């Protein structure tokens, strides 16, 4: 063996996370767990508030990947159920997107080769059961995600961070000092306080107040890919509900979201400001849902060219902004935190490692964008400027290939990084009416074999329904049980 020159790279002695929302708090907990010897500081805006325009922080739900991160960084589902008004969600329901008016569902977990899949069937019936890992179980491919009250959820994360010894500070980044390599050595807050660290996380939301101090970050514009640039959430939460589907309904101005939860039901309108004025949007929201309008949120769809610049890593809306179908905003942030945990930069920061982070994050972000863009291949029955514009949106080469392969033979090409699951993609494309060809192997199976496949699936669904309980009862039971 050659002489052994191996060294561990230096652990960052200190990390400062900026931001007051979910993304900042999740990242803080993740880093505090992964780096027990590192001093982690969470710097929130005054009063611990969260940027009210950061969608990843506003998200009250996202895709099932969040549970994986929770498990990894020691966040108990039980705590979310009990302390953050948590409830379970089995998928997304889409209404009015298609010319024929048919609804469709993206259920979490495995899509079935024919028909709705287990999660969709359970959600429709209002029944719930936990997934069962045993192969052969009708609940084997099932998955779910949580909904929660973001404020309470955040508070929970902060108290975990506290227990892990995180230092708390308040203030907004105002200026920075750099060393000779251009890395930030300390951030000066608007309060005058100074935060020194080896590594900085910018989870401050849109505008990325921190990474801007690290250089001149390039922004890649997605306005040609995604049509929504304004959101109008309802001012108040509507009555609580326990439906296990989030609803996304196309309307003339764009689309409406309705997401029930134990603390109330969230609704709002997504639209394009150049086609619908804020006043018109307020009328539309009232007309469609009866809700009175809250504060308008402007979105600049796009992403940073490099989320990791110098010694600053941007996460959440600081790194990418886009419309919240399925609240993918938090999902992308979760994937980015996982990537950060995988490629946790040692010191000195290695340009190749940084390149790897940026390369993979960009692929994740772009595939997330394409997943959203793929929604707009649906054509609602009504003619409206928003939907006419949506029909002219640009598709990336990867999306073109995806749509083409699906149309030709129900195949999904594999890409180097995938943000949403293949099951979600399959259900989206099948649901939104992308014409679906048949895979050659399946075509060769013959009619009888395909019928048998369908019958087997129906049997599985029936067995799953039987194994599940009405959700309100299930939840009452779970909450009634002594906390585990």
């Amino acid at each position, binding site marked *: 063996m050659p002489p052994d020159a191996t060294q561990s790279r230096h652990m960052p002695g200190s990390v400062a996370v900026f931001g007051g929302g979910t993304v900042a708090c999740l990242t803080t907990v993740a880093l505090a767990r992964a780096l027990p010897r590192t001093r982690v500081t969470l710097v929130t805006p005054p009063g611990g508030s969260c940027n009210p325009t950061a969608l990843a922080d506003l998200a009250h739900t996202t895709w099932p990947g969040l549970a994986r991160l929770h498990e990894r960084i020691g966040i108990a589902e039980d705590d979310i159920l009990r302390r953050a008004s948590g409830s379970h969600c089995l998928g997304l329901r889409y209404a009015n997107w298609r010319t024929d008016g048919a609804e469709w569902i993206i259920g979490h977990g495995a899509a079935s080769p024919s028909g709705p899949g287990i999660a969709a069937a359970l959600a429709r019936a209002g029944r719930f059961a936990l997934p069962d890992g045993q192969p052969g179980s009708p609940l084997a491919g099932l998955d779910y995600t949580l909904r929660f009250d973001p404020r309470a959820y955040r508070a929970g994360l902060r108290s975990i961070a506290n227990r892990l010894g995180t230092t708390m500070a308040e203030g907004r980044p105002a200026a920075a000092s750099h060393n000779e390599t251009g890395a930030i050595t300390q951030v000066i807050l608007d309060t005058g306080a100074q935060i020194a660290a080896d590594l900085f996380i910018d989870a401050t939301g849109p505008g990325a107040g921190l990474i801007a101090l690290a250089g001149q970050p390039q922004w890649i514009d997605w306005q040609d890919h995604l049509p929504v640039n304004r959101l109008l959430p309802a001012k108040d939460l509507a009555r609580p509900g326990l439906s296990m589907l989030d609803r996304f309904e196309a309307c003339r101005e764009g689309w409406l979201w309705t997401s029930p939860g134990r603390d109330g039901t969230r609704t709002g309108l997504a639209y394009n400001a150049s086609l619908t004025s804020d006043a018109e949007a307020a009328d539309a929201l009232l007309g469609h849902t009866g809700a009175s309008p809250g504060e308008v949120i402007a979105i600049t769809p796009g992403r940073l060219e490099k989320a990791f610049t110098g010694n600053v890593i941007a996460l959440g809306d600081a790194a990418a902004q886009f419309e919240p179908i399925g609240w993918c905003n938090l999902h992308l942030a979760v994937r980015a935190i996982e990537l950060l945990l995988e490629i946790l930069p040692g010191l000195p920061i290695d340009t190749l*490692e940084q390149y790897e982070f940026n390369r993979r994050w960009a692929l994740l972000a772009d595939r997330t964008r394409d997943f959203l863009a793929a929604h707009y291949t649906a054509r609602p029955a009504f003619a409206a400027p928003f939907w006419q514009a949506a029909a002219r949106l640009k598709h990336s080469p990867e999306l073109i290939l995806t749509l083409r392969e699906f149309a030709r033979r129900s195949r999904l090409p594999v890409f180097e990084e995938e943000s949403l699951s293949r099951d979600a993609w399959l259900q989206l494309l099948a649901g939104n009416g992308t014409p679906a060809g048949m895979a050659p192997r399946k075509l060769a199976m013959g009619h009888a074999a*395909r019928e048998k496949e369908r019958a087997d699936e129906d049997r599985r669904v029936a067995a799953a329904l039987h194994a599940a309980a009405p959700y309100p009862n299930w939840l009452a039971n779970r909450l009634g049980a002594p906390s585990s």
Partner: protein
Amino acid sequence: MIASQGPTGMKPVRVVIAGGGTAGWMTAAALSSQLASLVDVHLVESAEIGIVGVGEATIPHMREFLGTLGISERAFMAATGATYKLGIRFEDFGAIGECYTHPFGSFGRELDGLGFHHFHLRARREGLAAPLDAFSLPVRAAMLGRFAPPAGHPLTLEGGYGYAYHFDAARLAPFLRTFAESHGVKRTEGRITEVQRNSLTGDVTALRLEDGTVISGDLFVDCSGFRSLLLGETMASEWEDWSRWLACDRAAALPCAAQGTVIEPQTRAIAMTAGWRWRIPLRGRVGNGYVYSSAHLTDDEACAQILASAGAKPLADPRVLRFRAGRRRKSWVRNVVGIGLASGFLEPLESTSIYLAQIAIARLADLFPVNGIEDADRDEFNRLVDLEYDRIRDFLILHYHATRRSDSPFWQDMRAMAVPDSLTGALELWRRTARIAPHAQGLFHEPSWIAVLLGQGIVPEGYDPRADIAAAGSLERAMGGLAKEIDRLARAMPAHDEVLRQQETAHAA
């Protein structure tokens, strides 16, 4: 639109396969069984020309191939005289006297999401750990001559590895032929002397044989071997030459009698002065061959050296095969798809050739042009095939380049060569951070790269700082415990030749 109609009433696509070697019959077997009534498969082969007849070692994907065809392992092994393979033992590559195994499985266990090799690098620096080999069950088992198939969850030690086969290269094609013919494949014996084309489109319309027989079809699969009759000669698909990185262009193959009863469940690859030699243990014989660079060694010297080093009774004279590393720029041109040696060649250092045929067949079945070929089908197929070739290419080059040998002009050249940018990037990332960039498609993932990189002495300058968090004592205990557990599991496995003997007895009964 084909979507709702199903195949009823559709005319099957007439697939003509030119060549009946391993690639030709694999293609015939897979297409006929998986695409059933969508295809009408006709294979042409020439006994006079024969098959290349080498290619005895596989990787675990072979099992998947048999699985999708519904062929049982037992039947396959009995028909082809197969033995089990847990990995490849490389000797003298990094430096003379050094060896390591590239197993079908990873080393150790991840801890808190951090790869085992980071912990091992630390333990190594502190002098706390056994060599990497001790942390892989397939490596331990192979070294002890033992074998058992993985059992249990893939995240456990017992369930977390793969295996493949060594088999008699002359027996696979006939075995698959029986299978394919039972699925309706027609076969014609004869030499192809003319390829007829549509003068307007350039598509191939028919093959004409020496005896005047004309076989027409819609889709032509070129499995004619190195000659690349349709893809290379007729369609003139450009050749992309990789010999500046992979200099070996000859092999002297030598079957030998087996010695003793021990049948190793691994391939051996032993570096020589102008290349390397393989040792593949089969039932009752051992395959040997010297893969060398003709620029550095004459055929006579190569034959003499393989005879001298095989260390067993030769069953025939050494046979010299010629090849070159590279691939056709496009594997699918017009209505011609090249599969197997007809589409390209990467030398057998990691036993990947049959895999490349397998993957091309699977992609062809995925993208099968039921309703006429579109340009985008060809592009997608070619993109996917290229990706596989490129990844394997870089991994093979690594074996030559990552060396400290300077004992011969060949190794001096290998060491000094400029490698492809993709490999330079991967090496640099590893050297500086001990990371391997993951990829979703293609062969050889992190564990394989780690095995070869560390095995050939490319020790990174830095590893992940999280590996330093655990106290030295507990790290040493955990490592020691793991190595012990792996050794215990390996010793509990039956001897490989015993497993094979029992199979034979069961088969005879």
